[in-house]
């Protein structure tokens, strides 16, 4: 079957290129911006997802994992006494200053456990071992810190709150939502650094015994620790994400970006399709004169919109995937999960078909008698 839609698109090459470029721009904008957003949210919960705890005991109303508040570390003893708890350990999470060789001071998020081997923190250790942290003032530093702290290597020393620590290993992907690098050290060392941490902890990580009823354990922990929050990992991750999305305006920002991306796409596609429809109005009149219906013409415009959508999406996806290594170079993770890609693809199809509706309205009223006009 002859496709007038395709042939007209190829006939008006410049317009076609502009349309596809417009869709590609909109798709790239949405994919990269939302991908960055998802990447940031991923960072916001990366330690929660990796730690391997079933339940997190936090200070009451702690907004997210990075903004930890302290409570007495003896809470862990009450947690250990609850039936169904296989293991419970204190975890300190605290912002601390790192003194650099240049004299500059940079921030770090310190994660401190008494026994790292019992938890999946840190989860990616290309150099050294978390077990070495017990042997004095030692730490594992995330490789992303090179952007903030400058080059460093295993064996180097860095000063944290006036205490010299030796770097005994490195980690990967351990950075906070704000891209502040995470430093892992022994629990007692961390407590020694800050007065407010002495006798206190930030969290209690809880691992359930096999077959334990998570809801029942959670309820019992809440009963025993009435001044704390007890959350499942999923609840805690959701709460941490929600904080950044709602409290910082990031969600609104993303919403505006997506809206603008869609708006740009709709305007470009609608404008080019509409202009094309107007320019081909006599051809559409001819289609009607030779027996075609409005549906035949809608089909032409719809097919053109879908072709622009598919090609524009493909191009936009290529650009977005191409941007990932560049973004990764500056520690920005563009997350493009398949589900999200599928949603954007369907959204692009709908956006282009929606834009074609403007042209539908224009051609619906074509008087086929115009074919007799010169």
């Amino acid at each position, binding site marked *: *079957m*002859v496709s*007038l839609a395709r*042939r*007209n698109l*190829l*006939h008006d090459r410049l317009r076609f290129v502009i349309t596809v470029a417009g869709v590609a721009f909109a798709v790239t904008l949405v994919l990269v911006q939302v991908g960055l957003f998802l990447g940031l949210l991923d960072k916001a919960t990366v330690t929660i997802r990796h730690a391997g705890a079933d339940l997190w005991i936090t200070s009451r109303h702690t907004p997210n994992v990075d903004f930890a508040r302290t409570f007495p570390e003896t809470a862990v003893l009450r947690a250990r006494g609850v039936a169904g708890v296989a293991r419970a350990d204190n975890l300190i999470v605290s912002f601390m200053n790192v003194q650099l060789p240049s004299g500059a001071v940079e921030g770090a998020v310190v994660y401190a456990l008494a026994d790292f081997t019992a938890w999946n923190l840190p989860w990616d250790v290309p150099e050294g071992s978390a077990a070495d942290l017990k042997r004095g003032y030692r730490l594992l530093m995330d490789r992303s810190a090179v952007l903030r702290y400058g080059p460093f290597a295993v064996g180097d020393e860095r000063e944290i709150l006036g205490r010299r620590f030796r770097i005994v290993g490195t980690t990967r992907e351990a950075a906070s939502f704000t891209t502040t690098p995470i430093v892992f050290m022994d629990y007692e060392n961390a407590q020694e650094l800050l007065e407010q941490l002495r006798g206190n902890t930030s969290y209690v990580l809880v691992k359930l015994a096999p077959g334990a009823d998570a809801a029942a354990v959670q309820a019992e922990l809440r009963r025993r620790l009435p001044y704390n929050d007890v959350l499942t990992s999923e609840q805690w991750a959701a709460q941490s994400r929600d904080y950044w999305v709602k409290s910082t305006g990031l969600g609104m920002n993303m919403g505006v970006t997506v809206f603008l991306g869609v708006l740009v796409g709709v305007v470009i596609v609608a404008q080019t399709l509409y202009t094309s429809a107007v320019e081909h109005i*006599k*051809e559409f*009149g*001819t*289609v*009607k*004169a*030779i*027996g*075609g*219906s409005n549906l*035949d013409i809608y089909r032409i415009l719809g097919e053109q919109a879908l072709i622009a959508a598919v090609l524009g999406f493909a191009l936009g996806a290529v650009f977005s995937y191409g941007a990932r290594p560049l973004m990764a170079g500056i520690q920005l993770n563009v997350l493009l999960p398949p589900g999200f890609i599928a949603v954007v693809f369907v959204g692009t199809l709908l956006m282009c078909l929606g834009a074609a509706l403007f042209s539908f309205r224009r051609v619906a009223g074509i008087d*086929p*008698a115009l*074919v*007799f006009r*010169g």
Partner: protein
Amino acid sequence: MSQNVLRADGVTKVFEEGRQRVEVLRGITMEVGAGEVVALEGPSGSGKTTLLSIVGLILSPTAGEVEVAGTRLRRGDSATQREVRRRSIGFVFQQYNLFPALTALENVEYSLNVRGVRGRRAHDEAARVLERVGLDDRQHFLPRDLSGGQKQRVAIARALAGSPRVLLADEPTANLDTTTGGQILDLFQELARSEGKGLLVVTHDPKVRRIADRVVGIRDGKLAEAA
């Protein structure tokens, strides 16, 4: 007398714009028989094109009836009108109205697609009618690469595709030189004779009379004896 393939019976057309009421056609009755060539002549604004639009089922009359290939059309029945137009009427326009992005073959094939003929059948039928109008060597040319006469032949091939019983032509020689226009008229005459199509040609061109079986004049919306 040959069987009528087209008949207008008491067709009146009134256009109203605001308070203005213009009666363009006033009770026109005419017919075209199978294999007959009828020339419709008249000055500009006399109602020729409006009559062509009405008998071509593109425009509905204000009063009167139209019958095409044995089907009497009711006013407002646009679905039947479109179906009869698709099946039984072929148009040839003054400006050719070819699809510029499609080759000669595709122009004809596309009109067949619109008429419900698809695939190989459409392709073969398009090639056949192009050969019929003498353009078998120009099948893959775009309209911009064809001369005026060749474009009009493609338009005629498109009108012929699907074997409609009625051909309606609007000033088919207006944009052609004398020689080419003469060739097109010969083609029309030959098609009418050999394929038994009823042909109504709206024209200013006196040369059309050479091929016409009848010449009908139209003045101020009424039929008049042609000179």
